[in-house]
């Protein structure tokens, strides 16, 4: 690759940040590849179609990449293979019925999908869940996060060629799913959150079992710190790959661990104003300055471990009392508009509800994290090499249901 050879001096690590240099390198490579395509000296461009059904895809994301040799000139994700029209369907369902639908947006952390919708509806109704319900909500929210991100931790490794971690992830994730199932009755689709509280109280013996499960997840995290993060192949394939500068990430709407891996210290659990009990816990927001694929993995691993500590604290401090506020059995939400967003496993998820005082919402805008997170890919994939496409897509971490809704 002559383009990279010419730009080789830019990778000199003495001046400027790694992110700047990488960006510059990617830019130069893209320009060179474009120029070559235009004059048609060396090669003609090739269009590589990845997906919708391909071993390297997540779900049914299809990627059309225009290549020059091994380099991507232009890549574009094509969505819609799983579009289910939830925004339209929500307009013909009562508020309690909507939670059943939105469970299926991010199916790995389903409970977390329900929470912002319920919070937005509670905002409109001026209802607040009693303390115990809020604590149970927060526990389940963090369990969803763990169930979701442990799978990412295994999945990104398997995409980079390490088969073992994904089996370990599925194995240990099961402990968390069992706990979620014990409370809600559903492994994948709990449908447990209610306007004004939660459906049920915790079952007997659940707290001890959950603490044991959290210990298992902590062991899992420690193991992965060695097994994956300490792995030379993993490092060489993810370090410096797919760098997202913070300002660009924010203007594309990147949120969650993706933007924290670019050094932006922003977490809606700490900074948001929603009625969950994170302000009563002792925890920290993890950030990483590099902004590359490795940083995104690292941040998620730390967040998983932090979440287990949060669950332990939540279980220790669980207040007693009712689990439902006084709400009418037939729920009519007063006219108005409200937006509520929470820090979901994949990033910021929010619902903008427009109510006209009916049993059904007039309009629901679903702000799902993956849609915005993945919208940066055409920018990010310009100039990278083909194997790095997989690294970048895996590290941005999306769930197809969360893109297509």
């Amino acid at each position, binding site marked *: 690759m002559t383009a990279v050879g010419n730009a080789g001096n830019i990778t000199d690590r003495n001046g400027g940040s790694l992110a700047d240099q990488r960006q510059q390198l990617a830019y130069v490579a893209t320009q060179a590849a474009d120029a070559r395509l235009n004059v048609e000296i060396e090669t003609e461009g090739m269009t590589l179609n990845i997906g919708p059904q391909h071993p390297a895809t997540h779900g049914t994301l299809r990627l059309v990449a225009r290549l020059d040799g091994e380099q991507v000139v232009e890549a574009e994700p094509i969505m819609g293979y799983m579009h289910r029209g939830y925004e339209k369907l929500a307009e013909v369902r009562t508020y309690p019925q909507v939670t059943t639908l939105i469970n299926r947006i991010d199916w790995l952390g389903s409970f977390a999908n329900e929470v912002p919708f319920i919070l937005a509806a509670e905002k409109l109704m*001026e209802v607040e869940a009693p303390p115990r319900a809020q604590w149970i909500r927060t526990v389940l929210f963090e369990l969803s996060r763990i169930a979701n991100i442990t799978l990412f931790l295994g999945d990104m490794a398997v995409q980079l060629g390490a088969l073992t971690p994904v089996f370990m992830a599925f194995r240990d994730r099961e402990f968390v799913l069992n706990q979620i199932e014990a409370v809600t009755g559903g492994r994948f689709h709990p449908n447990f959150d209610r306007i004004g509280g939660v459906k049920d109280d915790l079952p007997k013996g659940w707290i001890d079992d959950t603490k044991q499960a959290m210990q298992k997840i902590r062991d899992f995290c420690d193991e992965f710190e060695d097994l994956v993060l300490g792995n030379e192949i993993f490092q060489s394939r993810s370090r410096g790959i797919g760098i997202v500068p913070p300002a660009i990430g*924010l203007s594309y709407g990147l949120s969650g661990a993706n933007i924290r891996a670019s050094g932006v210290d922003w977490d809606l659990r700490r900074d948001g104003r929603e009625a969950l009990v994170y302000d009563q816990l002792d925890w920290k927001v993890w950030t990483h300055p590099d902004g590359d694929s490795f940083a995104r993995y690292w941040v998620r691993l730390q967040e998983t471990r932090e979440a287990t500590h949060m669950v332990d604290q939540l279980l220790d401090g669980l207040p007693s009392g009712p689990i439902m506020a006084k709400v009418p*059995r*037939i729920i009519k939400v007063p006219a108005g508009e409200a*937006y509520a967003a929470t820090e979901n496993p994949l990033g910021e998820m*929010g619902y*903008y509800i427009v109510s006209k005082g009916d049993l059904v919402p007039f309009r629901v805008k679903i702000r799902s994290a993956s849609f915005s997170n993945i919208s940066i890919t055409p920018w990010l994939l310009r100039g990278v090499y083909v194997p790095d496409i997989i690294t970048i897509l895996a590290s941005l971490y999306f769930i197809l249901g969360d893109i297509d809704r």
Partner: protein
Amino acid sequence: MTQLSSTETGAAAETGAQPDEHREAWAAQLADALGDDFVEHHIIPESDLWVRVNRGSWVVAATAARDQLGCVFFDWLSAIDWLPSPYGRDMDAQEDNPQPKAADPTEQGYAGGETRFQMVVRLYSITDHMGLTIKADLPDGDLSIDTLIGVFPGTNWHEREAWEMFGIHFSGHPDLRHIYLPGEFQGNPLRKDFPLLARRVKPWPGIVDVELFPGEEGS
């Protein structure tokens, strides 16, 4: 609005009655930047801020919010169709209210609105931890507005979605084509006058969800 919850919420509502200086200041700053194009604003203290601007200063408003208010995080962009559903109650969950409500054309949400279609964009400041919703009316005969790609490149896909779902044209958008639906799809599904066919062919089984218990009075 009816107060439905227990006493704790009552206390919160009382503190919420205080004026929200920070949000007032944001609205004032935007009003300065936009002049006559700043139409209206609405504040729910300690909760949220809505601003309505003229369509012509849509890009100016977003730029001012980014540069002057520090809203560097692009949250989402979409539209609202304020037309009451022409399909009446059979589009709803047919419940305790057999009489269709008389459509009130003035019900246009916070910060008002005069036309059927309204653009909505939400921006957020990661330093002040406050969000802001900007709205703009679109005249019925000309559903178009300037693209925000120059301000927030992330609006690209959101505008494609709004174009597909509502039929709103974004002037200056380089790549306005279907994002979810197949290329040959006709119509704009999120418009209120686009029928949801599943409801037209079969009654909704979810009606029983709000059935009263025996002996219970309707509320």
